[in-house]
């Protein structure tokens, strides 16, 4: 598919996902009125919406922040997955690697167990710090393991260090949990991922980090293409793979931390969405990265719509929905992956 056509299709998919998600839910909102209310928010357009005060509150204070947060988190997770896959030249890597998810999990657990009295805002901040710390420790571990500069060489060592750090942090989390079983359900609810508590405030809090990390990743997409011919040839072409890798991994860590701070742990988006993008438009990150951003946003908005409607009035954790779709899709990725390099 041509690049412009693919991007256009992804934009339509995202808009459709947003509209469907805005229409569907426990409160029975009229789709025409919802569309009118959304259009009314566009500058210079004024339409009588026909929505009651209560319906407007449901739409603008409950559904829309959740939809925007879902789109932001989905886009971040998918573009981060594409970034990691580019620097490691491995289509099976995603933001859960390098200790990011495990660090976030430990941070959130510590916040819930020990800092519960400080208010609901503590968990996302602790998850954010934990995620960044996880990546930092994994990078240091990679540097020690390969006895070289972590980002400069030895990508396999860095990945393995990430796995080891992830296991260590998960063990630490289990230890903390075992000593505080009364908060088990609260912690697991967070670990399974959810957008049910998403607010405009949360969206605004992660927006600067998201914007920076997305901009950095999109601007480095051509560098990721150059890295696909291997470090030595990339150097012969005049780029410095170590610098590119350090910048992209840092941006990925920031993006993943922003995403988990809002939603908890949501798996598979970072693997499945870039893979579908590659199947549609080929391997160039100059198109895979923006397509993943849009596709991931639309995918998570739809997944969240399923999560909150399938068992209505109760909700499924969104991580369960993405895992149920993602696990079989992951097998498909494995099947259709030609080469796995580290």
């Amino acid at each position, binding site marked *: 598919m041509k690049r412009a056509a693919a991007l256009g299709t992804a934009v339509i998919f995202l808009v459709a996902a947003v509209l469907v998600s805005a229409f569907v839910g426990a409160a029975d909102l009229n789709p025409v009125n919802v569309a009118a209310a959304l259009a009314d928010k566009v500058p210079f357009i004024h339409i009588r919406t026909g929505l009651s005060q209560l319906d407007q509150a449901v739409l603008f204070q409950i559904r829309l922040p959740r939809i925007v947060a879902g789109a932001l988190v989905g886009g971040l997770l998918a573009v981060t997955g594409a970034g990691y896959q580019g620097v490691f030249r491995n289509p099976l890597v995603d933001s859960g690697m390098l200790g990011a998810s495990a660090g976030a999990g430990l941070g959130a657990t510590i916040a819930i167990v020990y800092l519960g009295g400080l208010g609901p805002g503590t968990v996302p901040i602790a998850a954010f710090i934990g995620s960044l710390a996880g990546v930092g420790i994994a990078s240091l571990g990679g540097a020690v393991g390969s006895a070289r500069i972590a980002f400069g060489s030895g990508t396999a060592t860095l990945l393995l260090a990430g796995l080891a750090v992830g296991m260590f942090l998960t063990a630490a989390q289990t230890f903390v949990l075992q000593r505080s079983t009364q908060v088990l359900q609260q912690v697991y609810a967070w670990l399974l991922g959810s957008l049910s508590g998403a607010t405009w405030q949360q969206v605004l809090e992660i927006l600067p980090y998201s914007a920076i990390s997305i901009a950095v990743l999109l*601007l*480095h997409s*051509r*560098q990721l*293409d*150059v890295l*696909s*011919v*291997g470090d*030595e*040839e990339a*150097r*012969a*072409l*005049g*780029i*410095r793979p170590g610098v590119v890798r350090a910048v992209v991994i840092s941006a990925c860590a920031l993006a993943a931390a922003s995403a988990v701070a809002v939603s908890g742990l949501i798996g598979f988006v970072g693997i499945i969405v870039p893979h579908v993008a*590659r199947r549609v438009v*080929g*391997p*160039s990150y*100059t198109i895979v990265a923006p397509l993943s951003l849009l596709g991931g946003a639309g995918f998570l908005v739809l997944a969240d719509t399923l999560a909150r409607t399938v068992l209505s009035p109760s909700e499924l954790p969104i991580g369960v929905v993405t895992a149920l779709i993602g696990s079989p899709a992951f097998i498909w990725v494995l099947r259709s992956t*030609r*080469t796995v390099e580290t």
Partner: protein
Amino acid sequence: MISVHDLTVTLDRNLVLSGVSFEASEGGWLSLIGPNGTGKSTALRAVAGLLPYAGTVSLAGTDARALRGRRRARAVAYVPQEPVLPPDMTVADYVLLGRTPHLGYLGVPGASDRAAAVAAMDQLDVASFAGRRLSHMSGGERQRVVLARALASGPSVLLLDEPTSMLDIGHQQQVLELVDGLRRSSRLTVLSTLHDLTIAGQYADTLVLLSAGRVAAAGSPASVLTEETIGRVYGAKVEVRLGPDGRPVVNPVRNVP
């Protein structure tokens, strides 16, 4: 023109090259030959700026150390023995990567870069399958595509590490004739490593025979490829005769009891 003086490379505390010197003129073809593990590829990688080295590498009179990153990559194109070819990438996108040395850190290719890539594809006769995936290429086509990527940067020096090691004899000749034509038409200086002594003698103007990281012999193919020298350096029994073009042909001879 490329001039290498007293090149010494140490890798993991092992002295791989010691005091190697050679010179290739503009439009010339110099090939490094020698037994396995004598440092041929290492010398090429050092010239490409991919390894730390002692000694001097000069490109058109300029010390290569003064040319860092993209400037060096614009002057020198490097084709490794086994290039990494992303299987799903198209030929056109792959060749366009050759323009990377001409782009800024966050630059994207423009019209002139695309034109240069198309010209390189035309030169190597691969433009007809520009939209094909790299995984769908034969060995000969693949090597031409890799050369097109190397030429897309508009280099003055082309470094080829065993460019024909994966090819059958027909494709070997096809690729080497192409390189020979390019260096004559574009005044491209070619520095290669070649395993096959006859092929090296047929195409290169100058041969540098390495043995244990040092120069064992250097000069014209006829002066380097002698039965005595090959026997001494390779420990091989060969028969050398001159072909119709006056270049040496090396045949292994079996020791029959």
